[in-house]
C-alpha cells in the first residue's frame, strides 16, 4: 500500500512541477528525464544479457529522422516524434538480423562502430542532412513553450517506465532472464532466443529514437557532432549502473542522483566534471555491482515488519 502511495505522490509532484518551478528547474528535469528514458532502454536490452553500446546511434537516427521530416516535408512536429521512433525501430529491425548473432564484446563493439558509421554517413550525405553543420528548424516544438515540452518529455519517460515494468512483469521476462542466465538452456527449453532478442532490440531502439526525436525537437537542431555524441551512451549507462541494473527502479533512481549531482558540478566545475562519472562507474563496478537501489531496498525490507513482495532480481 505504501508503495502505491509513494508512486502516486511522485506522479503528482512530476505533473504539477510546472506550477511552481521556473524554466531552469524544468530544463534540468527535462535532461534528467531524457537520460532516464535512455538508461531504462539500455537496461532493458541488458536484461537479455546483451551489452549494447548503440544507444547514441539510435538516439541520433531518431533525432535526424524527426528533424529532417519537419524541415523538408513540413510534417507536424508531434507526428514526427513517432516517425523518429519508427525509423530507429526499422533500422534496428534490419540490422538486428545481422548483429544479434554476435555476443559479448563483439556485440558491444559492433553497436559502437555502428554509431560511428551512422554519424559518418549522415555527415556525408549533406544534400539531405546539411552535412557537418547540421540542420536547424525555424522553431522548436510547441513554439518552445517550456511547460508543454516538459510534459512531452515526462510522458515519454513515463511511457518508457511503463514499458520497462511490463517487460519485467509479463511472461516475456521469463524468456529474457533465462536468455541472460544461460542461453543454451533457454534454447533447449524451447525459447526462440533470436525472436526475443530482436523484439527487445527493436523496442529499445525505437524508444531511443523517440527520445532522440523529442530531444532534437526541443532544441530544433541536429548536427552530427552533438546528436551522435557519446554522452548519450555514457551518461545513461552510468545512471543505470549507479541505480542498479536489471530493474526499473535502478535507472530511475540513478538518473535522479547523477542528474542532480552533475547539474551541481557543472556550476562549480566548468571543466571536466565528467571525471566524477568515470569515478562513479569504477567504484560501482568494483564495490557495488548491484547499484544503490537493491542493497537499500533489502535493508529496508529487513527492518520493516511488512515483508513486501519478493520479486527482487537475483
Amino acid at each position, binding site marked *: 500500500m505504501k508503495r502505491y502511495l509513494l508512486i502516486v505522490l511522485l506522479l503528482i509532484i512530476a505533473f504539477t512541477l510546472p506550477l511552481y518551478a521556473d524554466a531552469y528547474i524544468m530544463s534540468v528535469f527535462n535532461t534528467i528525464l531524457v537520460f532516464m528514458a535512455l538508461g531504462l532502454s539500455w537496461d532493458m536490452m*541488458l536484461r537479455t544479457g546483451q*551489452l549494447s553500446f548503440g544507444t547514441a546511434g539510435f538516439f541520433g537516427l531518431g533525432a535526424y529522422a524527426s528533424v529532417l521530416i519537419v524541415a523538408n516535408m513540413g510534417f507536424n512536429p508531434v507526428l514526427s516524434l513517432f516517425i523518429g521512433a519508427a525509423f530507429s525501430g526499422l533500422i534496428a529491425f534490419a540490422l538486428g538480423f*545481422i*548483429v544479434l*548473432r*554476435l555476443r*559479448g*564484446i*563483439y556485440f*558491444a*563493439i*559492433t553497436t*559502437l*562502430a*555502428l554509431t*560511428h*558509421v551512422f554519424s*559518418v*554517413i549522415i*555527415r*556525408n550525405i549533406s544534400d539531405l542532412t546539411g552535412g557537418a553543420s547540421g540542420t536547424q528548424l525555424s522553431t522548436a516544438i510547441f513554439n518552445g513553450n517550456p511547460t508543454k515540452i516538459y510534459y512531452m518529455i515526462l510522458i515519454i519517460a513515463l511511457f518508457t517506465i511503463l514499458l520497462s515494468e511490463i517487460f519485467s512483469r509479463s511472461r516475456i521476462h521469463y524468456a529474457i532472464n533465462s536468455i541472460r542466465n544461460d542461453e543454451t538452456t533457454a534454447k533447449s527449453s524451447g525459447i526462440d532466443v533470436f525472436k526475443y532478442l530482436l523484439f527487445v532490440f527493436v523496442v529499445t531502439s525505437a524508444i531511443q529514437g523517440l527520445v532522440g526525436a523529442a530531444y532534437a525537437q526541443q532544441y530544433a537542431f541536429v548536427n552530427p557532432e552533438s546528436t551522435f555524441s557519446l554522452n548519450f551512451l*555514457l551518461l545513461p*549507462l552510468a545512471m543505470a*549502473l549507479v541505480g542498479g541494473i536489471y530493474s526499473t527502479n535502478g535507472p530511475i533512481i540513478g538518473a535522479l542522483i547523477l542528474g542532480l549531482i552533475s547539474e551541481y558540478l557543472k556550476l562549480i566545475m566548468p*571543466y*571536466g*566534471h*565528467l*571525471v566524477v*562519472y*568515470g*569515478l*562513479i*562507474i*569504477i567504484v560501482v*563496478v*568494483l564495490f557495488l*555491482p548491484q547499484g544503490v537501489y537493491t542493497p537499500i531496498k533489502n535493508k529496508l525490507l529487513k527492518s520493516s515488519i511488512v515483508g513486501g513482495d519478493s520479486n527482487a532480481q537475483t
Partner: protein
Amino acid sequence: MSLSLKKTYTIILILAIFMIIVGFWNPNALMNGLQRGSLYALIALPLALVLGILGVLNLAHGEFLTVGFYFIYMLNTRFGMDPLVSIIPTIIFLAILGGIIYYLTVRKVVNKGHLSQLLITFGVSLVLMEVVNIIWTSQARNVYTQYAYASTEIGGFRFGTYELIYILSAVAVLVGLQLFLKKTRLGQATFAVGQNPKGAKIVGINVEYVYLFVFSLAIAILGIVAGTMLPRTAIFPAVGNPFTLKSFALSAMAGLGNLNGILFAGILLGIGESAINYMPNYSGWSDIVFFGVLIIVIIARSYKGAK
C-alpha cells in the same frame, strides 16, 4: 596466441595487390597510407597484446596514449626536452601508471565477465580524459620541431621523411615483442598464460605477475607512439579516443593474438583510408573504412564460426 605467418598469407596477398593498384593510381596515397597504417598498427599492437593475454578489451587504451602525449608535451614545455628523447622517461612513467591502474581496477575484473571489464576500462578512460581536460583544458596544443617537416624527393615524387619513423617503430616493436615472447623466460611464461591461464598456474607460473607485467608493458609501448607522433600531431583531451576502436578493428581483423597480422591489416586499412582521402569529393567517407571493415570482419567471423 599464434605467432605463425601462415594465417597472414591471405592478408599479405590482398595487401600486395592493393598496394600495386593504389601505387599506380596515386603514389602519394600509397606513401601516406603506408605511414598512416604503420602508425595504426603500432598503436594496435599493445591493445592486441592485452586482449590476447588477459582477455580484456582495454577501452582506456587511447586515453593512455593521450596521457603519454601530454606528459611529453609537459617535458617539452618545462625542460625543453625533445619529443623523441622524452620517449624514455615517458615509457617509464606510463609503465608505472599502467601498473598502478591495473592493480587498482583491471586486476579485479580479469576473471569476471565482459560487462565488468568493458565498464571498468570505460570508467578509467573517462577519468583519464577528464583529468587531462582539467589540468590542460580542452585547448589544442602542439610541439614544433624542425625535423618533423623534412621531406625528400625520389624521381620527381616528393614525400615527408619524418613519417617513415612510424614504419620503423612499428616493425621494431613487432620484432621486439616477438623476440620477447619467444626467447625470454618471462615471454614464454606470458605466452603460456595467454594460451591457458589455469595450466600456466599449475606449472608454477605467477599468473598475477604476468598479467601486471603485460598490462604495464602494453601501456609503456604507447610512450613510443606518443613520442614519435607528437611532432606531427596537435593534441587535445580526446585525441587518443578514436584509436581505441581502430586498434580493436585491427586486432579483430588479424585474429586474436596474431601480432604479425596486425601490421599487415593496419597497412591495408591505412592505404584504404588514404586512398579514399585522395579521391576528390569523397574524402569525408574515409572515416567509414575502419568501422565498416570492423563490422564486416566481426560478422563474417560469426558466420564462419557458426558453420
